[in-house]
Each structure stands twice: as structure tokens, then as C-alpha cells.
């Protein structure tokens, strides 16, 4: 009986975004963008990439001049994964903007960094980041993330 309930829940979650969650990946480094895109696609995710915070916000409908409809914003992405160190707007600042948005604050945000700095990590987690991941990312990291994403939707 319990097994049944579990798979029903999973099916319901699958239905929510089909089999392919849509992920927005933000990173100023071209190689890292390509890598994270491949990793996510290998985990059956639909991927959109952005090269900085501003472009990411524009895409999400939080840009200055953009008055996207409620529907647009809600349906766009299921997860945002962003690098911490970016010129202009850092990943932390992007995280804050997302959490300040009444429409996007429920979208899980993952921060990546090549530097393992506890104060940085805590700062991000306190601001509401779902997870902090060390670069370079491996396939196993993304598989784990995908599982977490499925679980947290319940």
C-alpha cells in the first residue's frame, strides 16, 4: 500500500512539469554554462542559460520594463541554478531579488561556487537558497539535485 502511494505521488509530481523540469542556469563563464547545460539535459531537464543576473531577471519577467503576466512568470521555470561570483550582480544578489518577488519566491534557487567559504554558504542558505554546490559540478551532483527537486515539490 505504501509503495503504491509513493509512486502515485511521484506520478503527480511528474505531471506537474511533465518529465522535464525547466531549469534556468546562470553563469558568466561560457565553459561552465555549456557544462551545466549538458549535466542538466542528461538528467532530463529542459535548460535555458543566462550569462548574468540581469539577463536572468529579464527572462524571469522581473526586468525593469517587463510587465509579463502572472501566468508567464509562474510557468516559466522550476529551478534556478546560479554561479555566485559574477560581475555586476552576484548570485547572492540575484537570489535576493528572486526571493523578494511574490511570484518567484517559491522557485528553488541553487548557488554554485568554486570557492568553499562557509560564511558565503551560510549567507546564501539564510537568504533562502535551496542548496549550495561546489564547482566543478559532477553528474552525481546534478542527479542528487534532481531527486531533491522531486521530493521538495511535495
Amino acid at each position, binding site marked *: 500500500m505504501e509503495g503504491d502511494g509513493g509512486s502515485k505521488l511521484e506520478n503527480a509530481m511528474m505531471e506537474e512539469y511533465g518529465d522535464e523540469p525547466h531549469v534556468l542556469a546562470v553563469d558568466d563563464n561560457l565553459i561552465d554554462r555549456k557544462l551545466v547545460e549538458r549535466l542538466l539535459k*542528461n538528467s532530463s531537464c529542459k535548460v535555458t542559460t543566462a550569462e548574468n543576473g540581469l539577463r536572468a531577471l529579464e527572462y524571469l519577467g522581473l526586468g525593469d520594463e517587463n510587465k509579463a503576466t502572472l501566468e508567464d512568470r509562474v510557468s516559466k521555470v522550476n529551478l534556478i541554478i546560479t554561479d555566485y561570483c559574477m*560581475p555586476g550582480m552576484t548570485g547572492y544578489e540575484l537570489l535576493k531579488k528572486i526571493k523578494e518577488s511574490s511570484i518567484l519566491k517559491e522557485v528553488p534557487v541553487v548557488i554554485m561556487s568554486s570557492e568553499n567559504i562557509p560564511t558565503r554558504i551560510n549567507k546564501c542558505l539564510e537568504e533562502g537558497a535551496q542548496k549550495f554546490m561546489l*564547482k566543478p559540478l559532477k*553528474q552525481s551532483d546534478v542527479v542528487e539535485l534532481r531527486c531533491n527537486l522531486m521530493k521538495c515539490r511535495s
Partner: protein
Amino acid sequence: MDSVIQLQRQLVDYTAQLFNEGILDDQFNQLQQLQDESNPDFVVEVVTLFFEDSERLLNELAKALEQQSVDYRKIDAHVHQLKGSSSSIGAQRVQKVCIAFRNCCEDRNIEGCQKCLQQVKHEYSLVKTKLETLFKVRGKKGKNKSNLFRMNTVAQATDFCLYDRSLSRRFWQQEGQFLGQYNKVKTIAEDHSQRKQNGILDM
């Protein structure tokens, strides 16, 4: 058929050497594992991007260090980029020099920075040459996509640097079952003492 096996063995030897010398690290294996028959050129594509991006950064760095008034923040930003990309493809020695380079920036040590630039150029050109050779050898296998894929998975098997010639010979002889074998071999390679039990590979 013999010359094919020879070539493949050379490739595995060559790759293993790059790992032994610390020119490449496990992250390069991660890249190879992301390549498959539906994305057969992934590694070459990423590495090509790395070459282009690195050359751009090295030029910027040379220019920045020639300025009358050196902008250390800008230099640090460029080195940070190079450190990130070299780390992402597994170019370990390039990454290490970048770390030292950033320290010199922090200390505003112009001579240290210049020295680091020379070192990073050297390490970069080394890894570039090695990777280009690797791709050329693979390229010789050429049109047969599934061969390329198999070569990649053997290169993966060298990530334990426990390269065993008799193991690799078995791979090429049992091509159809190769993928199934890889997982078995991986477990074997991980436990050094089990490596001798080649009987497990006999299908």
C-alpha cells in the same frame, strides 16, 4: 584489426600518462562521461571553447600587465575566469598556477604576476598540445561513431590509473558487451586486490 587495437592501446597509454603527470585530473573524466552517442562531440566542443576563451584571457592579461598603472582587480577577474574554466575541464596544472596568480594580484606583486603569466602560458600550451594530440588520435578512428564512444569509455577506465593491459585487451575483444563490462571493471579496478580476478570478465 591488430593496428586498431594498437592505436587504441596507445590512446589509453597516452591518456593515462596525462593523468599521471597531473596535466589532467578527474574532472576530464567527468567530461568524457557526459559524452555519448547522441552527443559524440561534446568533449571536443567544450575543449575548443576552453582554448578560445583561454587565449582571449591570456591576451587580456598580457595587455593588462603592460599598462602604466596596473589594474589588479581586472587582472584578478581574468585569472578567476581562467581558473574556473581550467578547473571545469580538468586542466589541473593551469588551475594551480591561477591560484598562485591570484595571490600575486592580492599582494599587488607585479613581478610575481608577470612570472605567473609566463607559467600559466606554459601550462596552457602544454595541455593544449596534449589535448590536440588526443583528439587527433581519436580522429583517426574517424567515421565510426561507436568506435569513438568505446574509446572514450576506455579512457574513462584509466581514471583509476590502474591500467592493466590484459584488461584492455579484453575490452576490445568483447565489443558488444563492452558497456556492461565497464561497470564490472570499474568495481574491480576500485578494489585493487580484485583486479587479479580476471575470471569475472569472461562472459
